[in-house]
């Protein structure tokens, strides 16, 4: 079954570039260049996955997620950004995106990432994996919710490999586990990232808003 994809980005060039790169591997059911149009069209066409630009006027990708999730919780979001700044990335993931990749990603890798998100799994860029490791490792051991504020040894290993730019398949081979298990670990990390009330994670979103 082909995955139905919707593209939201305020750069026309980038939208057409992504569309061309994806080719026939997915069905692009629409595009939007601003938050309002995106929310309306996504709620009308209900795609499987929305490719979402983090930076847009009028609230950015976060506003789109908020406008859709309530009516259509089944729609998954994969965030794309050129900035790679931890603050933006974490904000969008905590808003509900299933994953984050940089705009320099190859078409092939993007197709794979879309498929993964459509199945309900998480997708992290090396940069995001690095940030999550950093945020969780700076947690003092007292005063944590062990369910949400700590990563298991396996989750750390998987994240470290993601930060070293290994693919899921390569990670599975190296750690002697199945690709499914790798996906489960990453999804669990995503859940922790979204639900943890860690000060470090929330503060990052406000920290660097100088610009």
């Amino acid at each position: 079954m082909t995955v139905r994809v919707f593209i939201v980005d305020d750069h026309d060039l980038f939208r057409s570039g992504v569309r061309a790169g994806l080719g026939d591997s997915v069905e692009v059911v629409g595009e939007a260049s601003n938050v309002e149009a995106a929310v309306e069209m996504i709620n009308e066409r209900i795609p499987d996955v929305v490719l979402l630009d983090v930076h847009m006027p009028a609230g950015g990708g976060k506003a789109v997620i908020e406008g859709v999730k309530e009516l259509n919780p089944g729609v998954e979001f994969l965030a794309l950004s050129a900035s790679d700044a931890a603050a933006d990335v974490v904000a969008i993931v905590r808003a509900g995106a299933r994953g984050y990749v940089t705009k320099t990603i190859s078409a092939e890798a993007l197709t794979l990432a879309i498929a993964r998100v459509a199945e309900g799994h998480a997708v992290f860029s090396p940069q995001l994996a690095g940030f999550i490791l950093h945020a969780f490792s700076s947690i003092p051991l007292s005063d944590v919710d062990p369910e949400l504020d700590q990563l298991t040894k396996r989750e750390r290993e998987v994240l470290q490999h993601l930060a070293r730019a290994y693919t899921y398949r390569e990670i599975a081979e190296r750690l002697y586990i199945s690709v499914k298990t790798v996906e489960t670990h990453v999804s669990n990390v995503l859940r922790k990232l979204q639900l943890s009330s860690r000060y470090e994670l929330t503060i990052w979103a406000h920290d660097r808003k100088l610009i």
Partner: protein
Amino acid sequence: MEPVDAHTSDAERTLRRVVVGYRAVAAAWLVILGVISVAGPEGPARPGVVVATMVLAVAWALVTIALHAQSPDLMRSWLFLAIDTGVAAWTLVAPDVAGSENFYGGYPMSPVFLAAYGRGMVGGLTTAVALGTVQLSRLAGPADPTASSAAVLIYVFAGAVAGWAVGLLREADRTTRMAEAALAREQVERVRAEEKAEMAAHLHDSVLQTLALIRRNSADESEVASLARRQERELRAWLYGTGGGSTRGAFGELMRRMCAEVEDAHQVAVHLVTVGDAEGDASMEALVQAAREAIVNAAKHSGAANVAVYAESSPERVTVFVRDRGRGFDYGSVPADRQGIRESIINRLVRSGGRATVHTKVGEGTEVELVLER
């Protein structure tokens, strides 16, 4: 707007100090009058009651002073004000019980002021009416009707005026502080706007220069890629303070600078991810140099366009992985006299107390693992 904490401002503290100061004076006043009454030629029928009232007034004044220092919020509670009024009411009826002259002096005004401070005009008037009622009830006994009626009027008048004055002072204080806060905000905003304008000017200039260079070198593909990378790096550094990584500090900074230099010199894209950070001492320098050699090797020999670098610092050790998806090689077949990897990467690190491992296979890329125990 930032919240203005009414309980801790200077004006609030000064008001409280005046009210509590009056309490101390009033208690002293009561003690003096009490001593005079007990020691006078026509002493009271029950001097013990006078002495007990003096002790009570002093003790309660000490409680008030302690609250003023420890938990001033409590002084504003209705419970405290009720007890406070009760103590004053006792000083009013004590002379009748003791069979003495009035010796409360100015004490009954003290709870009126305190209530006006704590609860504004409503508080001041409530206490004044309560004490006034007690004062009037004494008329059934030996009290002088004119003096008592005058006292009631004074209580009510003082309660109203004190409440009104406290309100005015607070309002004036609030206005001043809001104006100050607004001024401070405006200043911060102006500085920020200036910084932004400066930054924008710098960025625009540097992007224009890069575009001009790209146009002039448009035939040279690798030069164009290198210019674009350099500009991207500069933009990131300006916009986000770092190369987009999650840390900044000595070791991370060394790694970032090194990766940028290799990118420029060797026409390869280096993707650096850092986790944690460490001090940049001599052994860290050695680690960074070893990493540089590994990246340069990848750039020169692997044929890959990208090199992924991952640096993790923990309190126990610093680890760097340098990885390419290039052609790889048969590590065992590298002759011992070929010094490239052994000397510049492995031995360099071993001399600093670290170790290096090369994982590679023909056709499967190369990963160099560098570890430095701390």
